[in-house]
Every structure is written in structure tokens, then in C-alpha cells.
């Protein structure tokens, strides 16, 4: 899983990277007034032998458009609006008439060219600011033809760094439980919806996947041996171990950031309580000891606090305690049912699902209970939110359109996107977003 494929992909900064040098501030994507970056991506120019891989001209433009669109931060200008005569148009600043692009409302322009010598593919990308008529970022990559998507994603990251100050999450995956009839299995899928992989095949109820912080393992609960036991699997090796099988519930929740501890819910003593399982020693440390239901614990990124759900005050609400189980305080007071807390990567906010007018929707709230935001409003609602590792997105399940599917939204609630269906999966549940996996 953690394979670093960049070793064969030689890349080089060959152009002036002006955003770093003159520090132009582009728009803050988290601001409420954020408008998507309008960008035009005309077909790439074949700089090599005519006829060699000509179809790549359109492929590069399409793939980059799709990847940028998926981020939710770009408005891709339609080809129909283009004024530039594309045949023979140049790809460097001196060869471009920027008014052709600023005139159609495209503040940004990506130009690219490639050449293929039968063995190696060389691709160059340039991002321009069309208002000021200057280059913002440029890169050239060499590699095998099958590495072309990796090259596009690499440059998409460069564009995101230049315009938003942070990389994208193209090298992340989302794990979820895929349901068919009376069984469900764990699957993973890339951020952009490509490459779905079935991780388990137990023909049983298998639920609640959670990525380990280094992305090499996934914890989950399965009824495959009759009782809801807790397992950890390594998708790359296929090696799976049972880590908890007390009578009753064995539900895994979040991992500690060093990957050595896991939060568990066990009902072995009659009440559902929260425990830390130390993976090295196998030792169990009990954190809550209440007659109420305590479930869904989630560690803060610094490991000092744990958010969890308890009905100790009557209905399910979110509480926060320290990592020793002390100093319990209630976080949510609005609504009669709040659940599934997930801490933002910067530790300032908690996303959760809460009932609103009889439906469950996604909310986020400051960790001190301030600044409550409702992020989804559709009739299909939202359940089980999980943050992307950069904190810019949330993934959740929703029954919009009848079937439960996985949706991604920007953390301000805008730009919903549904992940594609998978053959043999009828409904999609409890998504978990991985950390960066260095996939390309």
C-alpha cells in the first residue's frame, strides 16, 4: 500500500515558479465568499514526432480537467468557449495571447505538451495567470507511458499548492462497508473514485472500517465467526488478525496517531464501555465506567482528548474526555440525537451526524462547543462523517436518491460529489478516509 512510485518518475523544476517568489496571495478556499478558480485547459501539444500517441493531446486535457474538478475548487471552462485557434497554438508565455483567455473569464490557463520516443514519455505543464499574463508554475516529467496519470496528479498538486497553499489528496483512499443482501464487505476506493478494491470476502456482516495512520492496515468488526469480533487486516499482504473477541460487541474506532493503540468499544461486562487496546502488549485499558451506552470514541489529533457518544444524559450526545477517561464534558446540546464524532486534522473542529427535523445531517462544531455549522440539508441526510487528511473535505454516507451512497463535500458543505457505484454493492456505509498514502 505504501509504495512510493515516484522513484521512476523523474521530475524537475525547469521554469520560474513565481508564486513562491513574489508571494501573490490567491483566494482563501475556506472563506465563505470563495468562488471557484476559473481555469481553461486546452488540448496538449504533441511536441514530438507527429502521429506518435496523438490521442494523448485530448487525454491529458481531460484527465487534468477531471482531477481539478474533483477537488471542488475549480470551474473548468468549456472548450466551446475557447477563442484561441488551437491548431499550432504555442504553450509558452511568449506564444500565448492571454486576452484570448482572460476575455472568456478564465483567470487561469494550463498549457501542456508531450513527446513520446517509443520508450519514454516526456510531459511539460505550465500554469498561467491570464490577467497578469505570467507563469505561476511549470514542471516537466519523464516516465513510462503508463505513468501518465501519476504525472497529471503530480501537476494537479502543483496547481493546488500554487493557488491554495496546500497539496491535494489525490494519494488518499476511502474505505467503507459495501452491502449486498445480508452481508457486507470492506472495500477501498481512490479519492477520485477510481480503482475500487474488495478487501474482505467473508460473506458475513463486516462493518466499521478504520484506517491505521500509516495507511498500511484497516481495523473492522466482522460477524464471520458468529460474534461481532474486531480484526486488523493488511490489504497489501492480505494478512488478517483477530484482536478482540469478547462475548458481545468488539467495535474498533480510531487509532492513535502513532498507530500503536486503538480505541475499542466492548460490552463484555454488560455495559458498552470505551477501552484503549495497546497493540504491542495486547493490554486493555478501560476509560469509561458508566451504566449508559458509550460508543464511537475518536482521538484528537494530538492524542490528548477523546470525543465519544453517550446516552448518559438521556439521548445520544457527544462528550469529550481526556485520554485517561477523566474530565468528561458534554459537547453537543442542540438536537436530540448527535453521534459519530470525527476530529478535524488541525484539532479545532469535530464533525458529527445529528438529527434535524427527523433526519440525520452532517454538522461540525468547534471543540469548545462554539461555531456550530450544519453542512448538509438534503432529504437523504448524512451519516458517519470522516475528514480528509488535509481537513478540506468530509466524506459521509447518504440516502439521497433512495440508496445509501458515499458522498464527498468541501468542509464548508459545498460541492457535493457522489463516489461511483461498484458492481455487486447495493449500499455503501461508514466511510473512513486514509492519510496520504504516497501512491504516486
Amino acid at each position, binding site marked *: 500500500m505504501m509504495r512510493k512510485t515516484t522513484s521512476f518518475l523523474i521530475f524537475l523544476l525547469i521554469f520560474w515558479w513565481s508564486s513562491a517568489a513574489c508571494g501573490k496571495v490567491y483566494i482563501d478556499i475556506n472563506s465563505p465568499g470563495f468562488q471557484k478558480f476559473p481555469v481553461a485547459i486546452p488540448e496538449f501539444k504533441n511536441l514530438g514526432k507527429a502521429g506518435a500517441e496523438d490521442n494523448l493531446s485530448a487525454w491529458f486535457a481531460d484527465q487534468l480537467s477531471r482531477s481539478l474538478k474533483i477537488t471542488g475548487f475549480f470551474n473548468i471552462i468549456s472548450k466551446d468557449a475557447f477563442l484561441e485557434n488551437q491548431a499550432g497554438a504555442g504553450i509558452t508565455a511568449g506564444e500565448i495571447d492571454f486576452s484570448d483567455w482572460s476575455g472568456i473569464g478564465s483567470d487561469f490557463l494550463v498549457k501542456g505538451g508531450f513527446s513520446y520516443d517509443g520508450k519514454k514519455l516526456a510531459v511539460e505543464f505550465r500554469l498561467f495567470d491570464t490577467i497578469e499574463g505570467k507563469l505561476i508554475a511549470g514542471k516537466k516529467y519523464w516516465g513510462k507511458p503508463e505513468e501518465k496519470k501519476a504525472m497529471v496528479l503530480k501537476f494537479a498538486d502543483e496547481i493546488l499548492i500554487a493557488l491554495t497553499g496546500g497539496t491535494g489528496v489525490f494519494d488518499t483512499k476511502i474505505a467503507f462497508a459495501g452491502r449486498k443482501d445480508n452481508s*457486507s464487505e470492506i472495500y477501498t476506493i481512490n479519492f477520485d473514485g477510481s480503482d475500487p478494491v474488495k478487501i474482505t470476502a467473508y460473506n458475513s456482516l463486516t462493518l466499521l472500517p478504520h484506517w491505521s495512520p500509516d495507511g498500511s492496515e484497516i481495523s473492522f468488526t466482522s460477524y464471520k465467526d458468529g460474534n461481532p469480533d474486531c480484526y486488523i487486516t493488511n490489504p497489501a499482504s492480505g494478512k488478517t488478525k483477530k484482536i478482540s473477541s469478547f462475548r458481545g460487541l468488539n467495535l474498533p474506532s480510531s487509532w492513535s496517531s502513532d498507530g500503536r493503540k486503538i480505541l475499542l468499544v466492548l460490552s463484555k461486562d454488560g455495559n458498552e464501555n470505551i477501552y484503549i487496546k495497546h497493540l504491542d502488549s495486547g493490554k486493555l485499558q478501560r476509560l469509561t465506567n458508566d451504566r449508559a451506552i458509550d*460508543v464511537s470514541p475518536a482521538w484528537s489529533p494530538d492524542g490528548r482528548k477523546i470525543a465519544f457518544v453517550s*446516552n448518559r444524559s438521556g439521548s*445520544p450526545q457527544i462528550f469529550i474526555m481526556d485520554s485517561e477517561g477523566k474530565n468528561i464534558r458534554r459537547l453537543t446540546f442542540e438536537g436530540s440525537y448527535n453521534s*459519530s464524532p470525527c476530529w478535524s486534522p488541525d484539532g479545532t473542529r469535530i464533525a458529527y451526524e445529528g438529527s434535524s427535523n427527523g433526519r440525520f445531517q452532517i454538522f461540525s462544531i468547534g471543540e469548545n462547543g462554539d461555531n456550530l455549522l450544519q453542512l448538509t440539508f438534503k432529504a437523504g441526510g448524512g451519516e458517519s462523517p470522516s475528514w480528509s487528511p488535509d481537513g478540506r473535505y468530509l466524506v459521509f454516507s447518504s440516502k439521497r436518491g433512495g440508496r445509501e451512497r458515499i458522498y464527498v463535500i468541501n468542509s464548508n458543505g459545498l460541492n457535493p460529489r457522489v463516489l461511483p457505484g461498484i458492481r455487486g454493492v447495493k449500499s455503501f456505509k461508514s466511510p473512513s478516509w486514509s492519510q496520504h498514502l504516497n501512491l504516486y
Partner: protein
Amino acid sequence: MKRNLIIVGLMVLICSFSLIFVGGCAKDQAVMGDVELAQIQPSAEETAQAQAQAQAQAEKEAALREQALKEKALEEKLMAEADSFKNIHFSFDKYDLSPEARDILGKLADWMLKYSDFEVTIEGHCDNRGTIAYNLALGERRAGAAKAYLANLGIADARITTISYGEELPADPGQNEAAWAKNRRDHFIVFPKKQ
């Protein structure tokens, strides 16, 4: 020599067939047993002995089978009886027992006290509103509430198993109050104690 053996075997087979038919309780398995005996003991004297044994065996097996059938019929009758206390229902996000639920549990307890060879598995279920993990816990509580009630009525702990399926196995896949009400349930499965 070998051919003789087969002929004798066939004769034995025919004899035993007719004997059993006279006995009026032909059973396939009994016949199979006779063939094997005949092949091992081909002498006339021993064949007669074998026939007698076979008949005794067949009668014994038939009696056993009849008893098993009777037991099975009884079991089915009991299970059908148990159908009348198969499910109890709950309010949303609740696991306390309603008067109707207590009534049904009372019947189940009476039945289990009467038929002490039976055990019960209590499955706790929820409707699919709310969280998977919380609903697994809620299902656990619902099953636990029924188990505690049965235990109070004198059913031994060892005869009751509980398991929660949360919102994972709805009785009705509908997305409306009627379906949800059906899904918020304890489901009881009675079965004869495993020997």
C-alpha cells in the same frame, strides 16, 4: 467361486426383501445392511442367522426412526407454538420493555419452563436511523433487557444467548414509520438443546 458368491448374495437380498415386506416396514437402509452382511458371511447357516439379525436390526431402526419422527413432529409443534412469541418491539432509541413485550416474554418463559430441553437466542435489532455503532449498542441493550426479564422469571442464564445486529438486518426494508416500528425488535429463536 466369485460368481457363486454373487448369486448367494443376490438370493439373500431377495429373501431379506421379501421378509421385510412381510414385516411391513421396509426401509432402504436396512436392506443395504443386509447386503453387506451377506457378502461377508456367505454360508447358508450364517445367512439364516444374518437374516434374523437383519430383521431385528431393521425393526429396531424403524422404531427409532418412528420415535425420531414423533419427536420431530412434537418439536415442530412446539416451534409453531413458539411462533406466537417470536418478536417484541421497542420505541425509537429505547430498550425498556412495554406491557405487550412483558406479556410475550411471560409466555416465552412459561413455555421454556415447560420444555426444559429448549434454549433461546435473543437477537437485538434497531431501525436504521442513527449510527451503526450506537445501534449495535442499542440492539445489545434490547436483547439484554429481554434476557434479564426471562432470568427473573426463572429461566437459567445458560439457556439464553444474546446477540446484537444493530440496524444491519431489518425485518422490513421500507423507509417509513411502519417499517421502522417492525425493525425495532428482539427476535427470539428457540431450538432444542444441543446434545
